[in-house]
């Protein structure tokens, strides 16, 4: 069980960063709140490999950097649609296959889709995603292919 000390360290660091207090009384309150959070997390059975994927931190960080670039691009695209009077809206629904992803990979992919403006995940299930997209794309499945591949690589470690 590496997850309990891991979460303990993370919560303590968060508390210290947010408060900056060092008196004994405040530290006691901090210990109490950290312990309460730990107990609640265990009661909800949220502790585990899926909830805190330490083994995938480095690929996730690389993926986050790539995702930032995508967010900038799609922000500009949606901004263009808003401020250009002649810009055409062409909303459509796209169904994407699950391709045998783990739940972590599905969650990461669905979240990435929703985080980039212009695409929203309507439904995320084990057998696929249903996505609402704002723009006309050349080919709907090609458009999501890079994000699908990269999120799968980041979460599951396979391409």
């Amino acid at each position: 069980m590496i997850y309990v000390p891991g979460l303990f360290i993370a919560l303590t660091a968060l508390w210290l960063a947010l408060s900056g207090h060092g008196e004994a009384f405040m530290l006691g309150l901090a210990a109490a709140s950290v312990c309460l959070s730990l107990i609640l997390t265990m009661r909800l059975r949220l502790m585990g490999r899926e909830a805190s994927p330490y083994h995938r931190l480095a690929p996730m960080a690389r993926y986050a950097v790539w995702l930032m670039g995508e967010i900038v691009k799609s922000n500009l695209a949606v901004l263009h649609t808003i401020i250009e009077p002649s810009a055409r809206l062409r909303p459509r629904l796209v169904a994407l296959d699950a391709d045998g992803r783990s739940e972590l990979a599905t969650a990461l992919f669905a979240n990435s889709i929703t985080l980039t403006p212009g695409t929203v995940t309507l439904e995320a299930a084990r057998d696929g995603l249903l996505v609402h997209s704002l723009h006309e794309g050349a080919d709907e499945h090609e458009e999501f292919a890079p994000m699908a591949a990269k999120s799968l690589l980041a979460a599951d470690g396979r391409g």
Partner: protein
Amino acid sequence: MLEAIAWIGSAFIIAAVGLSIAGAVGVLRFPDVYTRIHAASITDTGAASLMTLGMLLMAGLSPAAIKLCIVWLFIMLTSPAAAHALAGAAFGSGHRPILGDPRRPSEDET
């Protein structure tokens, strides 16, 4: 030098406010809930990121910088969850998205 960084920070903040207004205009202009969610997510991602960057440049290395990063992280983690809950609930209750070109209703549109 510090002056220059503060000015760049202000420029980021003004750009963020511009994005935020653009997102609000989009929420007013777009035809249905689903398209409006796209416009609103500009404010959630673009404007929040730019504004955090701008304020980070103005704050420099300080406890406030850590808190700014935490605010940004919260917004980036929660906004897709909220948008998905909204879109999923609207879709699950039977609201149909407008598809195709809304200004020229075609025959396949119901």
